């Protein structure tokens, strides 16, 4: 849960293990540049690894305005550096497209996305007023598929040959996962009851 957030102001969220805070485009590019040389981090997003300069990576990222476009950095409590970030882009119809990059592989398999994405989804539904949240993992991105399913998203379809897989040098399919506000609130209610 967040303090009352105002559009345009930085987002600050807290989970049991992490501090989440808005990043500017420059901050996101600066802190994440080291990850761009890791194919295991970059390829799931259809991005090449190892060919980025600081300038080209900065230009690749969107401008974030904390109104409809958010980049929320993830830092473990206790003073460690940035390990990843969640992004969200909200349409004028109140639909948020989300993605996450955990660039620090030491944190893979430790439940980071389950914890931080829950906080971001709470924020999008409760503070931004979204009606729906959705994402599109590649069909071979098994960890990401797991995370969407465990958070209660519904697989709504497949985008066929929608993107490029740098690992296989072939086009690849993507799943569409969607979550409605009422579904999320019901899930939260059930979790609170346990």
């Amino acid at each position, binding site marked *: 849960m967040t303090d009352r957030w105002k559009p345009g102001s930085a987002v600050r969220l807290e989970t049991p293990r992490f501090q989440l805070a808005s990043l500017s485009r420059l901050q996101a590019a600066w802190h994440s540049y080291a990850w761009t040389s890791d194919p295991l981090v970059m390829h799931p997003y259809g991005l090449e690894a190892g060919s980025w300069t600081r300038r080209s990576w900065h230009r690749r990222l969107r401008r974030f305005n904390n109104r409809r476009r958010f980049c929320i950095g993830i830092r473990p409590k206790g003073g460690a550096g940035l390990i990843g970030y969640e992004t969200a882009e909200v349409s004028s119809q109140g639909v948020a497209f989300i993605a996450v990059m955990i660039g620090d592989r030491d944190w893979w*398999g430790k439940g980071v996305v389950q914890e931080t994405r829950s906080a971001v989804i709470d924020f999008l539904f409760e503070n931004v007023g979204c009606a729906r949240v959705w994402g599109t993992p590649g069909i071979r991105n098994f960890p990401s*598929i797991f995370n969407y399913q465990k958070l209660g998203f519904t697989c709504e379809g497949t985008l066929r040959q929608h993107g490029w897989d740098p690992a296989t040098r072939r086009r690849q399919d993507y799943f569409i996962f969607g979550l409605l506000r009422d579904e999320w609130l019901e899930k939260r209610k059930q979790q609170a009851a346990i």
Partner: protein
Amino acid sequence: MRRLDEARRLVAHALEKTVDEIAPGGALGTQSGWDSLGHMRIVMSLETELDRTLAAHEIIEIKSLADIAALLASHIAIPG
């Protein structure tokens, strides 16, 4: 029953656990060790066992031991 036992063995191997640690009703996110990386290892182990790449509709259905058992049951061994 046999396929469910095979599924338990496959998941145990993928998650580096003993078969006894894999509950018969084990499912995505509730079985100890079946986290995001565990899920990746399970799906890849299943593809190795089936000797093929899973289709999108099969990948999305893998949520429990029963689902894995059903996929294993669909695999028909071709006599050598």
